[in-house]
């Protein structure tokens, strides 16, 4: 969730920041919550995302911004800071996703056709492997190794 702010940090007291944060939080469910302020020096055209917590005020956000600006650009300015927008993410326990190979035919080391079926093949270059949606060229001096979750790992001989 995001909301436009366009205010200088000096105008954002604790209560105003808390209100902004709460308004976003009320729109979405989730156990783990985080807030960021899109922040820049007055006059700049690009922002840096600065994490903050409800309970902090604008000057605290400005300090976070200055630190991040120093890390990113190597300098800070004695200049007012403005918050362009605030953003909120709320996340919950995600379902576990497991990638696996899925196909119908067994691997054939002569035909070199991979339709996605489970296999643990290694193919030394120079070779051409036919994939479901592409053609994989294994150059001389390289080895292709089938990966359990799908796809191939290409490794150059040392």
């Amino acid at each position, binding site marked *: 969730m995001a909301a436009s702010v366009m205010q200088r940090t000096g105008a954002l007291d604790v209560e105003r920041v808390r209100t902004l944060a709460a308004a976003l939080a009320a729109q979405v469910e989730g156990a783990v919550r985080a807030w960021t302020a899109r922040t820049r020096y007055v006059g700049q055209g690009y922002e840096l995302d600065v994490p903050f917590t409800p309970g902090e005020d604008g000057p605290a956000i400005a300090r976070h911004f200055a630190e991040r600006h120093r890390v990113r650009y190597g300098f800070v*300015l004695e200049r007012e800071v403005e918050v362009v927008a605030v953003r909120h993410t709320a996340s919950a326990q995600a379902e576990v996703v497991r990638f696996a190979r899925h196909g119908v035919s067994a691997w054939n080391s002569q035909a070199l056709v991979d339709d996605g079926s489970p296999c643990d093949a290694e193919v030394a270059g120079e070779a051409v492997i036919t994939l479901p949606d592409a053609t994989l060229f294994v150059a001389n001096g390289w080895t292709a190794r089938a990966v359990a979750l799908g796809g191939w790992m290409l490794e150059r001989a040392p």
Partner: protein
Amino acid sequence: MSGFDPLAIRVFASSVAMIAEEMGAVLTRGSLSPNIRERRDASCALFDPDGRMIAQAAHIPVHLGAMPEAVRAVRARGPRPGDVFLLNDPYHGGSHLPDLTMVEAIDEGGRTAGFAAVRAHHADVGGMSPGSMPFGATELVQEGLVLPPVRLVAGGVLDESLLALVLANVRTPDERRGDLAAQQSACRAGAAGWLALRAREGVAHVEAGASALLDYSERRAVARLRELGDIEAGAEDFLEGDGVTDALVPLRVRLRVRDGRLTLDFAGTSPRVRGNVNCPVAVARAAALFVLRSLLDDDVPTNDGIARPIEIVTPDDCLIAARWPSAVAAGNVETSQRITDLLFAALANAGVAAPAQGQGTMNNVTFGGAGWTFYETLGGGQGASAKGPGPSAVHVGMSNTRNTPIESLEQAYPLRVDEYSIRRGSGGRGREHGGEGVVRRYRVLERCTVTLLTERRVRAPRGSHGGGDGATGRNLLNGEPLPSKCRIEMKAGDVLTIETPGGGGYGAA
């Protein structure tokens, strides 16, 4: 070129090009003035330890051939590893004074591993007129603070007294401080990228790669010139006054291609003039590079190699090989455009397929009020060619900037844009139409000074192969015509209208 086949060169070229692009990203994201952060009136380049330009981000063509001069001027001052130099002197590596150039000698364990250079057009560097793009200047010192290459950072320490001196001589010191800090940051990004590449690939590999890359671009440029055959032709064009008088200022060239080498002899071009349309020869070199670059395929890497087959010959006293103390502010932006037109015309006269003339001006508009200055150039019509119509409302030739978004301009300055539109009917007619110019109408909210440095208000961009000419541009104050180059005082509520030229058409309609 051992070890570098065309594929390896391509990979290496992309590696260094991305370092230059990242420098540009850091600059625009960290800077304050709309002219740099929005219009991208800046260029970033990377040089090897010998001062050869390995890559330049494709930002501003007029900086293309001029940046190596800046690094050459810095190297002549004996930079120590890690030193950062600042300069803008057109006669010592600069182009015109608003272009402040920062050059860092990249420190690799106590030796200089290369140079990172960032040139950016600042909205004010002092002088007789807000915005430092003055009308009527006759000496360089009138145009702003002149900086020969000076050591801004020595031994990792910023020279605060030097910075204070610079900031004390400009009208908008806070904005300048921020933009200079962003330039330094961009240099650091270039240095970090270059050092990382050398660490990852090995110094020997990278240095060999740099040589192979330059040789490759040279081979591509020479091959293209050889395709043109042995050709020779002349051309003539004019500037509409030098900013002091309205007398036409002639530019002439004899273009010759022999065995893959391009010679441009500017005999017959005007001597230096009193006004500020003079330019250092680096600007002429940039125009020549731009024209040759435009003849090459898109995939040719942009670096010093392209310049190798070009020879420029100028008379001793020449408009485009100016010497101190000539004023040059408009030369970089307007004379450079005319040189470009001239060279394309010479190519066309030699039978090479060249487009019709584009708007041929950058339409330089500079505002300055109490505590603020704003500079921008405006797009117009590009010339049509045998391949198709000319695009409308684009920066043409030596300018490759974007426009200033109205929201950004109005947020930052006491200005309102009442109209920003395509200037319908301004493009030349023809089998292929020339691009249309734009109409930009500013209303000022408080008293301010405005300087206009424009061209093609009298002599229209010409069509080609029977195509019609583009419309000349117009400058208006409250509906009344203004000269092409002028300085005016505006009060709250006054309206300035700039109608930019259209491009020439191609072929009979």
